[in-house]
């Protein structure tokens, strides 16, 4: 799991016109992981994928995949990488099975109808194998693109916004497909706007904005380090000051003494424990309460907070 299969060093891309889409990006992807690359529109996610997959020429920096330098030994590296693009780009007049077989041949592999059948069945496309792609629904077209990307049995798969524009049910179906691929040992790098998706699927998360990789960490570690618990305790009777027993907690009096607000913890559950301890102190002190609202911060909160800090610094 810790073996690096993709290493980016000092990767930069400046488009003609001066737009710096990637700014000195260093990133290592480990075998077998699901890595979620999060960022707002125009952050550089698709450029990063394009640079690795050969669609974008980096301005500077190096890319090594499976130990091969992508600048000099790109054939060996590319044969092990699959790409599912964001746009539904495929030859709409072709039948599904022929489009998938073409992808396999394009990557230099011998025809293998049994393997193509296995891929199409795993994506629930076997019944549609003879249909022209133009006749399929949007979700099915997306699955055809995944089938095409899997046709040459890649070890590393890029999914660029795999669930963009699909409904909740299809999105859940797509998550199941990603799970299947992980079980097969495919390393996956996905970009997404849906933080929930990253929270659910990813082992590690990278946050990118304006071409800069702001943070890369294990999802759990990121949540633990940057996560917070927020609790609001509604009191039956207003209080003027906190009892001394609560002084050691990060707690404030709000709404004219009718509510206590706790902001603390670290995303590992310590915050919930402290809230429970606070309620015990309140009971012991004879302070009655009518309700408790506890909320753990999500990856989305962390994401928004990080981007906010970055934008403040940039300003």
């Amino acid at each position, binding site marked *: 799991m810790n073996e690096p299969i993709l290493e980016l060093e000092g990767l930069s891309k400046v488009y003609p016109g001066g737009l710096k889409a990637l700014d000195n990006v260093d990133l290592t992807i480990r075998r077998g992981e699901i890595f979620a690359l999060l960022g707002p529109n125009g952050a550089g996610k698709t450029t990063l994928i394009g640079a690795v997959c*050969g*669609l974008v020429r980096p301005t500077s920096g190096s890319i090594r995949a499976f130990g091969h330098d992508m600048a000099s030994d*790109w*054939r060996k590296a590319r044969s092990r990488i699959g*790409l599912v693009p964001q746009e539904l780009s495929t030859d709409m007049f072709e039948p599904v099975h022929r489009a998938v077989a073409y992808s396999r041949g*394009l*990557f*230099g592999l011998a025809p293998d109808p049994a393997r193509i059948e296995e891929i199409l069945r795993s994506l629930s496309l076997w019944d549609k194998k003879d249909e022209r792609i133009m006749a399929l629904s949007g979700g099915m077209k997306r699955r055809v693109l995944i089938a095409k990307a899997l046709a040459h049995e890649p070890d590393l798969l890029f999914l660029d916004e795999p669930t963009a524009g699909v409904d909740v049910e299809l999105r859940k179906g797509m998550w199941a497909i990603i799970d299947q691929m992980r079980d097969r040992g495919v390393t996956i790098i996905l970009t997404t706007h849906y933080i929930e998706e990253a929270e659910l699927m990813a082992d590690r998360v990278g946050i990118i904005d304006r071409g800069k990789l702001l943070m890369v960490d294990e999802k759990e570690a990121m949540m633990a380090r940057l996560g917070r618990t927020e609790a609001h305790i509604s009191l039956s009777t207003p209080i003027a000051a906190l009892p001394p027993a609560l002084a050691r907690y990060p707690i404030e009096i709000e709404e004219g003494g009718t509510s206590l607000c706790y902001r603390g913890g670290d995303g590992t559950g310590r915050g919930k424990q402290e809230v429970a301890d606070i309620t015990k102190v309140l009971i012991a002190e004879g302070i009655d309460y009518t309700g408790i609202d506890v909320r753990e911060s999500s990856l989305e909160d962390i994401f928004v907070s990080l981007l906010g800090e970055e934008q403040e610094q940039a300003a």
Partner: protein
Amino acid sequence: MIGWRSTWSIYTRELMRFLRTAFQSVLAPVLTTSLYFIVFGAAIGGRMPDLGGVDYGAFIIPGLLMLTLLGETTSNSSFGIYMPRFTGTIYELLSAPVGVAETLIGFVGAAMTKSLILAAIILVTARLFVDYSIAYPLLAVLYIMLVAAAFSLFGFILGIWADNFEKLGIIPMLFLTPLTFLGGTFYSIDMLPEPWDTIALANPIVYLVSGLRWTFYGSSDVNIWISFGITLAFLAACTGVIAYIFKTGWRLRA
């Protein structure tokens, strides 16, 4: 090292695209050639003298062949690479372990194959209207293949250069077809008065039509070696441009 499986995949896919529209692809040149023979061969040709000892109907066959060959080859090849750029499917080609050799042999080979099929169809159609024989059949096939290769490469460049359908059609429509018509398709440039016979020699298509005509009838307006030389030079120039395009990624990679 060339990835032959990748090459074969591109080649067969391009041919499948041709077969999807086979009816139109085959019928159009048959109909056009028939119309030319009816108008120029039967209606007008009957009143024309022999040209260099060749019946006028037979004289125009190499020119008509070249007219269709240049148009169809350029169009097939340019559409072949432009459409993936237009629809976005080119991502797959660019992210695959294929280089300039596989891409060119695949796309250009398919365009050449289509052109050779069309050439055969035109020759068979011509036979229905005119009695003719080919003096140097092997040289004729070689010459047709050379021209098809050169204009497939030219079409490929056009398909990469064009960023809209108008540009894709403008070069064949505004340059290729007029130059072919003025390049001795229907006449020998000897028939032109001064200074037009000299000016006509500035038209590169004259050399192509003349070269093919020589392989058919053993005589032509221009020396056959000059025709071969110009065709090979055009082929080399197009190959050089494509090598530059792939090296720099111009209009292919961002």
